[in-house]
């Protein structure tokens, strides 16, 4: 009886600790998501958590001072005087706060503490980031400024054009190779497979300089074809290894009966092996897809800065570099780039986890 009680108590503790950890893990993403739909002016003036109801200053009434009030002199309001500086940052008197609403028009806010939340949302950030036109936005101090969209829409399609082939091609090549390694006999088979395993963790940095030189000679820099090949080569060792462990587990009888029926290796591969390996293929495809989609270094080096082939990760990185404080743009851009991975992740979590369990050696 006592034991049961202590178990229940420890379960309560486990749940609480885990819930706190989960909260800490989720808050960063949540902050990004909330910020991405807030107006630019709000993001820069208040923290994103202010959308949660909290005790804050709300304007109860407004005071119109005489238009000719001299701001360099102490300003008299309700029997007391304040300086302009005080009114700019807000000054507290008996539980109320006085702060300029519009300094030039001499309009003053009288604020009180009350429950409030900044629930103003907009899709403007996304429109600006996706399109390539000019947009005007309102800044915290009331001024407007014009900014050019960053053409993320284009980058999105470019990323797709890079990612899908860079997923399909290596998986095709690796599956054929894995089939040969597992079920065909040929000289050099063992040596080659050992090399594949050794290449699993080789850092790609070690290959970049020579590849870049070859690409320059062949005119492959800044082309989709070039980056497909690079991603294919960097992904091949893991995918081959992964597919090998799946294909080599298939029962031998399967092949023998197919051979007796006169099927060729190609037929066996495409009619028998591929359909039987669908779960493995799904897992490793997701893995490779996300890897290429999220990649930054390979595209940075082989696509260069040509705007017409730029992918999402580079686009965001450029934004970070050139518009580092424009959080309304950065958050929206980052969320757009996360949309695809998160969809894939939540829709196909089972396969993703399985791919990771098998691919934990990837370098």
């Amino acid at each position, binding site marked *: 009886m006592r034991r049961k009680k202590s178990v229940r108590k420890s379960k309560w503790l486990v749940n609480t600790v885990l819930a706190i950890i989960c909260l800490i893990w989720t808050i960063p993403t949540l902050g*990004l998501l909330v910020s991405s739909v807030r107006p630019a002016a709000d993001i820069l003036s208040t*923290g994103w958590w202010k959308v949660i109801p909290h005790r804050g200053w709300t304007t109860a009434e407004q005071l119109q001072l005489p238009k000719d009030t001299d701001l360099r002199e102490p300003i008299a309001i309700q029997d007391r005087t304040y300086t302009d500086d005080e009114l700019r940052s807000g000054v507290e008197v008996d539980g109320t706060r006085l702060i300029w609403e519009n300094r030039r028009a001499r309009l003053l806010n009288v604020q009180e503490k009350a429950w409030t939340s900044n629930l103003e949302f907009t899709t403007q950030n996304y429109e600006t980031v996706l399109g390539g036109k000019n947009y005007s936005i309102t800044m915290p101090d009331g001024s407007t400024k014009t900014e050019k969209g960053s053409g993320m829409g284009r980058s999105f399609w470019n990323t797709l054009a890079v990612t899908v082939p860079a997923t399909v091609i290596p998986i095709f090549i690796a599956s054929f190779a894995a089939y040969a390694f597992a079920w065909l006999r040929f000289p050099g088979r*063992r040596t080659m497979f050992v090399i594949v395993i050794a290449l699993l963790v080789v850092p790609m940095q070690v290959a970049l300089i*020579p590849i870049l030189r070859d690409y320059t000679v062949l005119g492959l820099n800044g082309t989709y074809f070039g980056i497909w090949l690079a991603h294919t080569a960097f992904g*091949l060792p893991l995918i081959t290894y992964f597919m090998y462990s799946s294909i080599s587990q298939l029962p031998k009888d399967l092949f023998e009966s197919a051979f007796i029926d006169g099927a060729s290796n190609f037929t066996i591969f495409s009619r028998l092996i591929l359909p039987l390996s669908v779960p493995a293929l799904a897992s490793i495809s997701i893995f490779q897809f996300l890897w290429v989609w999220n990649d*930054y270094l390979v595209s940075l080096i082989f696509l260069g800065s040509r705007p017409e082939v730029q992918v999402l990760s580079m686009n965001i990185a450029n934004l970070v570099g050139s518009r580092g404080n424009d959080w309304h743009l950065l958050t929206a851009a980052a969320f757009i*780039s996360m949309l695809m991975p998160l969809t894939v992740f939540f829709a196909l979590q089972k396969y993703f986890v399985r791919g990771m369990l098998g691919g934990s050696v990837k370098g």
Partner: protein
Amino acid sequence: MELQAKKGHTLRLLLLSLLVPALNIAIHGLFFILFRDAGLHPILNAVIAVIWGAFGIYFIYYSMNWVVEQYPDQWKRRVLPFVFIGPAVLLLGWLLVLPTLRTLYLSFFDSNSANFIGLANYAAVFTDRLLVMALRNNLLWVFFGTLACVTLGLLIAILADRSSFEKIAKGLIFMPMAISFVAAGVIWKFIYYYQPGQEQIGLLNAIVVTFGGEAQAWLSMIRPWNNLFLIAILIWMQTGFAMVIFSAAIKSIPESILEAARMDGAGEIRIFFSVIIPYISGTLLSVTTTIVVFTLKIFDVVMIMTGGQYETDVVATQFYRQLFMFQNTGYGSTLAIVLLIAVIPVIIINLRQFRREGGF
């Protein structure tokens, strides 16, 4: 008569063996030129790229296989495996194996690869202030990053195993794995954001100010500990990976062993250290090596967050800067080789593991 027919047959095979690869090269070459020069609408461009990429590769295998199928049986058996592994071997050779050797070669030459200078680049890696700093920071990454990911991953896996909302918890912790380091960089840059004045919109500074502290520019002050703020991002992203794998390993522990330990009066902590840890030691090793390799090559986070400024450079970012900003191929290659040397123990572990599992 028969001999002549056979000769004609051989000639035809030879011709096919040359023509089909040539045809493949011609078709894909055409596509390549079309893509480079046409300047299509982005969506159309993406659609055609996807179709070309996916069907092109199938067509190459299909046509090559068709040629080999025409061969006499004995030749077919000999040649076919090479059609199957050919593309993989060619690509790996051209884009991974040879480049590694060429990089090794370049690392013995000076900045523009003109003069042989022996081991001078390697000496520089361990004396040049910038490069030594990159090495030091990489050690910080490897040590703190791996330690935190593995410990937290294990802790969360065990907590989740005993909690009442395991699935949701694992999904939430695991989610950052799916997003890119670039996006994660934006997320965390926002958290660390510092602006002069009272109102802080960066979460970390807001918390610090609430508790009466002073807002800081976390990424550029308090060196070298600003590296830890970057490492936190890695921990946020990779703990999920460690957790999922540990979770699978923990679930594979037979209930009877745990039950037996409990019968003997072992407490939960004792069970953890004397039953669970030894049981999953293999997994522990492989997760640790994976994260070590990952942190050794860390690039994106540092590049996005600081660009390697404020003494946060790591080997991979220094590699990039040496190569593209200082045009120093010698240093660049040497740094790449240093990374390679660092992962050699892992390669050996992998090969041993493979042999132990039966190899071929």
